[in-house]
C-alpha cells in the first residue's frame, strides 16, 4: 500500500499537476522496507542513468542528489528497486562502464555520502537501490592498470592479463565488432599485449590472481557496508579465460560467483546479485548455480522475441523461447525487460531472425549498433500506445521481475544521431520548461541534448503533462504496477502456455500459491498480438466452473464450461482473468 501517493491524488481531486509534483517530492516517507530476503522475486525494478535523470546542482549533469529529489515520483509510480547505471569516476568512454575507481563517485554525479543518503531516503520510501558493478574489467585510467602497465615486476604486474603474443585465445569472439579488431591491445609502456573482451581501453582483470579476487570482494563489501541492496553484475561470463576454451562461462567464473554469494549471504542479509549474462536461457541458468550463485539473471532472448511476435502477429517467437527456458532453482528469479540502456541486442537470435528484426525495426542503418538496434520503446513501436500497453502487459505478466527503463513510462523517444548508445540515454523529460526540467544549466552545458522534436520532444512528452492527464500512459502504467503488486502470482507463479486456436493470440496461465499462503490461484493472461480484432478458443477444462474476473476492472466474464473457452479481443487487446470462482461463497 502507498497511502501517501493515494492521499495525494484524492486530496487534489485530480491527478497531481506541476505544483502537486513538488509536493510528491517532499512527501514524508511512508513505507518502511520489509525484512524479506526474497523481495527481488516480486520487485519492479527501474533502471536509471544518474547523469541523465535529474540535475540538482545545475551543472548540466544529472546527479545522485537529483535522484533523491525525484524519489517521490518513483514511489508514486510504484517502483520497488532502483538500478543505478555506473556513477563511478570514469573517463566515460563507455558510459561509465570504464571504471577508474570502484569505491568513489564521479564528482559530477555527487559523493559517496550522497549515495548513502540516496539509499537511506529510498529505504524510507520502501524502495531499494542496487548499482552496476563491473567485475570483468577496469578503465585503462584505473590506478591498478596504470601501475600494472608500468613494468613487468611491480606489485600489480599480474593484476591484468598480459601476454607477449596477440595470438593466444584467438578463437574467442570479439564482442564490440563495430570498433574492435582483436581482444588484445599492445601497450607500448610495458611492451606487452593486454587482454580485453570489450573496448581496448577496458583491460580485463586477472581473476587467476587471488589478490584481484580479494580486491573486488572488498569493493563489494565497501558498497554493501554503505547500504546498497545489491548489484547488477556487468558482463559476468567473461571473468576467466584459458587455453582451449572460448572465454565464456568457465567453471572458474562460477566458482568466483559462489564465493561472492557466500560473502554476501554471510554478512549482508536481503541483498541481491543480478547477473548480466547475454546467453541462451539454457546457459544462463548456470549463473543461478544451485541457488548459490546469482539471485537473478536477465532473460535476454525473450525481449527481441516479444517485438518479433508483435510484428509477425503470431505468438511462436515468444512461446518458442519460453519452451526453451529451463526451470530455475528455488529462490531465484529472471529479470525481464523491454528496453534498457544498451541496444536491443540481437545476439540471441538466429541470423535470419536478426535480418528480419533489422528490416522491421531498424530500417535506418543509424539505428543499428553492434549486433542490435539502438532505439527506445516508443519509436520501436511507432509510438503506438496500444502496442506499448500490450508489451507492458506481457512484461508484467510473464515470469520474472520486470525492469523498466527510465523515460519509457512516458513513452520517451530517442535520438539516433547521437554516437554509440547515447541515443537512448538522453535526459529524462520532467516538464515542458527549459531543458525539459532536467537541469537549470545552459543548454550548451547539458550532458546530452534533451529531445526537442515535435513528437517525442519534452514540450510534448514529460512527467508534468502526463501526471496531469489521467488517461496518460504514465497513469496507465502506474495502475498496472499497482494491480501486479496485488497479485504476487505474477511474480512467483508457474507458467503454462495455453494452446489458443488462433496464432495471433498468446494465452498463458500463471498459477500457484501466490504469496505462499491460501488456496492455489490461477490467472489467465490472454493477448492479441494483431492489430486487428481477434477471437480464440482455448481449453480451460481444468478450471471448469470458474467465473473469470478481469483483474483491472473486476468485471465478471462468462463462466468456464465444458467447451473450449471463447475470448474476443480488440486490436492489441489483452485480459488478465482471475480464474477464482467468484460465484461461489
Amino acid at each position, binding site marked *: 500500500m502507498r497511502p501517501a501517493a493515494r492521499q495525494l491524488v484524492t486530496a487534489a481531486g485530480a491527478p497531481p499537476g506541476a505544483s502537486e509534483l513538488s509536493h510528491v517530492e517532499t512527501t514524508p516517507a511512508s513505507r518502511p522496507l520489509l525484512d524479506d530476503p526474497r523481495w527481488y522475486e516480486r520487485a519492479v525494478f527501474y533502471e536509471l542513468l544518474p547523469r541523465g535523470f535529474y540535475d540538482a546542482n545545475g551543472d548540466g549533469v544529472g546527479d545522485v542528489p537529483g535522484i533523491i529529489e525525484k524519489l517521490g515520483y518513483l514511489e508514486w509510480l510504484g517502483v520497488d528497486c532502483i538500478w543505478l547505471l555506473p556513477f563511478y569516476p570514469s573517463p566515460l568512454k563507455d558510459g561509465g562502464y570504464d571504471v577508474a575507481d570502484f569505491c568513489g563517485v564521479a564528482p559530477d554525479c555527487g559523493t559517496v555520502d550522497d549515495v548513502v543518503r540516496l539509499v537511506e531516503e529510498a529505504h524510507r520510501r520502501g524502495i531499494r537501490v542496487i548499482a552496476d558493478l563491473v567485475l570483468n574489467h577496469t578503465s585503462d585510467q584505473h590506478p591498478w592498470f596504470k601501475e600494472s602497465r608500468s613494468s613487468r615486476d611491480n606489485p600489480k604486474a599480474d593484476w591484468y592479463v598480459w601476454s607477449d603474443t596477440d595470438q593466444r585465445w584467438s578463437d574467442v569472439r570479439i564482442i564490440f565488432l563495430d570498433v574492435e579488431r582483436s581482444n588484445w591491445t599492445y601497450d607500448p609502456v610495458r611492451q606487452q599485449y593486454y587482454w580485453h573482451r570489450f573496448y581496448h581501453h577496458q583491460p580485463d582483470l586477472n581473476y587467476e590472481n587471488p589478490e584481484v579476487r580479494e580486491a573486488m570482494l572488498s569493493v563489494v563489501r565497501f558498497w554493501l557496508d554503505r547500504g546498497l541492496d545489491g548489484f547488477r553484475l556487468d558482463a559476468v561470463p567473461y571473468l576467466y579465460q584459458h587455453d582451449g576454451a572460448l572465454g565464456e562461462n568457465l567453471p572458474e567464473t562460477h566458482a568466483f560467483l559462489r564465493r561472492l554469494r557466500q560473502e554476501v549471504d554471510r554478512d549482508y542479509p536481503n541483498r541481491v546479485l543480478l547477473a548480466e549474462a547475454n546467453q541462451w536461457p539454457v546457459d544462463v541458468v548456470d549463473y543461478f548455480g544451485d541457488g548459490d550463485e546469482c539471485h537473478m539473471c536477465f532473460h535476454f532472448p525473450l525481449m527481441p522475441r516479444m517485438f518479433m511476435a508483435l*510484428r*509477425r*502477429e*503470431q505468438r*511462436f517467437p515468444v*512461446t*518458442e523461447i*519460453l*519452451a526453451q527456458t529451463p526451470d530455475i532453482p528455488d529462490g531465484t528469479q529472471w529479470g525481464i525487460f523491454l528496453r534498457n540502456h544498451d541496444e536491443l541486442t540481437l545476439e540471441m537470435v538466429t541470423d*535470419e*531472425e536478426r535480418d*528480419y528484426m533489422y*528490416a*522491421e525495426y531498424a530500417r535506418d542503418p543509424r539505428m543499428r549498433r553492434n549486433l542490435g538496434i539502438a532505439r527506445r520503446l516508443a519509436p520501436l513501436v511507432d509510438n503506438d500506445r496500444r502496442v506499448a500497453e500490450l508489451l507492458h502487459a506481457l512484461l508484467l505478466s510473464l515470469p520474472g521481475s520486470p525492469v523498466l527503463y527510465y523515460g519509457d513510462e512516458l513513452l520517451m523517444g530517442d535520438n539516433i544521431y547521437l554516437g554509440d548508445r547515447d541515443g537512448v540515454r538522453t535526459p529524462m523529460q520532467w516538464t515542458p520548461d527549459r531543458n525539459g526540467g532536467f537541469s537549470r544549466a545552459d543548454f550548451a552545458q547539458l550532458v546530452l541534448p534533451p529531445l526537442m522534436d515535435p513528437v517525442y520532444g519534452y514540450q510534448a512528452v514529460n512527467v508534468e503533462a502526463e501526471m496531469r492527464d489521467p488517461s496518460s500512459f504514465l497513469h496507465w502504467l502506474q495502475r498496472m504496477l499497482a494491480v501486479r503488486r496485488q497479485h504476487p502470482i505474477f511474480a512467483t507463479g508457474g507458467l503454462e*502456455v*495455453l*494452446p489458443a*486456436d*488462433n*496464432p*495471433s493470440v498468446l494465452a498463458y496461465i500463471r498459477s500457484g500459491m501466490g504469496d505462499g499462503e491460501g488456496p492455489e490461484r490461477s490467472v489467465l493472461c490472454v493477448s492479441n498480438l*494483431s*492489430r*486487428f480484432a481477434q477471437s480464440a478458443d482455448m*481449453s480451460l*477444462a*481444468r478450471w471448469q466452473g470458474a467465473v473469470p474476473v478481469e483483474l483491472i476492472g473486476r468485471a465478471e466474464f462468462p463462466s468456464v464450461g465444458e467447451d473450449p473457452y471463447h475470448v474476443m479481443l480488440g486490436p492489441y487487446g489483452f485480459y488478465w482473468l482471475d480464474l477464482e470462482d467468484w460465484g461461489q461463497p
Partner: protein
Amino acid sequence: MTLDVDALRPLARTYLERQPWYQATISVADATAGPDAPSAAGTTGPSTEAGAARATAVEVESAEVLRAQRPGLARFVLARGELRFQLLVGWRPAASAAEALRGGESALLGPCSDGDGPVLAYDALADDDLVLALLAHVTGGAERAERVRRMPTLVSHSSVVFDERLFMKCYRVLERGARSEVDVVLRLDEVGFNALPAPVAHWRAGGYDLALVREFLPGALEGRLLAMTSLRDLLAHAPAAAPPAPEAPDEAASVTLGDPDAEVAAAGGDLASEMRRLGATTASLHLALVQGFGEQPADASTFARALRREGIDPAEALEKAGPLDRGAAGSAIRLHGDYHLRRVMRSEAGWLVVGFGDDPLYGSTDAGTSLRGTLGSPLEDLADMTFSLRMAAREALGQRGSAETAAASLLADAWWRRNAGALVEGYLTTDGAVRLVPADPATRETLLAAFESARELRYEATPAEA
C-alpha cells in the same frame, strides 16, 4: 460375468447401419465398385442375388471382451462384404449408463445382459471411463490419464485427446494387414524423424491395426492459420478500392502500391522464414521416407505416369523439361501424398508433419484424391504445398470480398511467389535433399509447375474439396 455376445450381434449391426460414417463408407465403396456390382464385395464375390444379399449384410466377424467387470468393454469387428468395421461396445446398468453418456442417447445400442443382470450396451467411445480404460489397455498400462476430450469424428476413425497430452486415433473402418498410416508413422519414428507427433502405443489384434496413440502437442497450429495470419497482415496494406486518378493512372498506382515483391518482403507478417523452415522439414521428411521405404531412380516415365494419373497429357511438360535420364531426374520415393497446409503444424519445436492417412477410401476428407503409398518424385509433395499456398492466397483475397482490388491481387500473387520460393529454397538447401529432385533448375521448375497445374485441374473438378 460374461457378456451375452449373441444378443449383442443384432444390436451392433443396427447401430452400425445407423452411423453416418458407415453409410458414407459403403456409398463410396459401392460407387467405386461400379454399376454392375451389387456392393464393394461384388467385384470378387458371388454374382447371384443371394450372394449380393450376403455381401450387403452386416455380420459380426469377431468379438473380444476387453473388460468383463462393469462398466464392461468389448471390441467387435463387423463385416460387410470386403469392408471391415470396428465397434467398441460398453455396458452398464441402465441408471449409471445414462449418467456416463450424459444424455448422449445416440450412442445407445440397446439392452442386453452381462450375466449379472440386465445392462445397457452403448458405443464405448462415448463413455469417459471406458475411453480411459481403453487407453490403459492399448498402452499395456503404461499410460493413464484423467481427462478425455473428443475431437470431431471423421469417417475412418474417432479421435480422443487425453489430458491435452496424448492423442488416440481409434479406427472405425479397418484395413487388413498393415495400415498405411501406422506403418509410415512407426517407420519414420524408427529412422529418427522427429518432426511428427511421436507414436506412444499401437494396438493391433486379429490381423487389424485398431488404434494408434501418439503424443498430443496442444500448442501446435495448422500451417494454414499461419499463412492466413501473414496474408491478413499483408493485404491490410492494399488499398480497399482503386484510387480515382484518371489523369495519371500509372502514377497513382505507383503511389498506392510499390513493387509488390518488395512490399511482401517488407511486411511485418512475412512468412518466408517459416516457409524456409517448412521446406527444410519437408526435405527431412523425404530423406526419412527414403531411409524407411527405399527409393528408385526416377526417369521420364515417373513424371509421365504421375501426370497421366491426373488426367494430363505429359508430352508438353516433358518436352519442355528436357532430358530426364536416370541419374539426373532425382528419385522416386514414397510420398506423403496429401501434403498441404492443413497437414503441417507449427509447434514450439518447429514444423510437424501429420496426416499420413486418415481415410483410406477417400484419400482424405478435405483434400481430394490421395497419392498415399505411391512412389513418385518429391516434386509432387512440393507442388501440393505450393498449390496449397496459392489457395491460401486466394482464400484471403476472397475474404476481402468487395474490397478485393487489383493491388490486393498483385500483393497476393507476390506473397505466393515469395513463400513458395522460400519453401523450395529451404528444401533444396537441406543437406542431401537436392539429389532427390531433378538436377537441372529449369527442369525442376517446369515439372513443379506442371504438377501444380494438375492440382489446379483437380481442384477445378472438385472445388468443394480443396
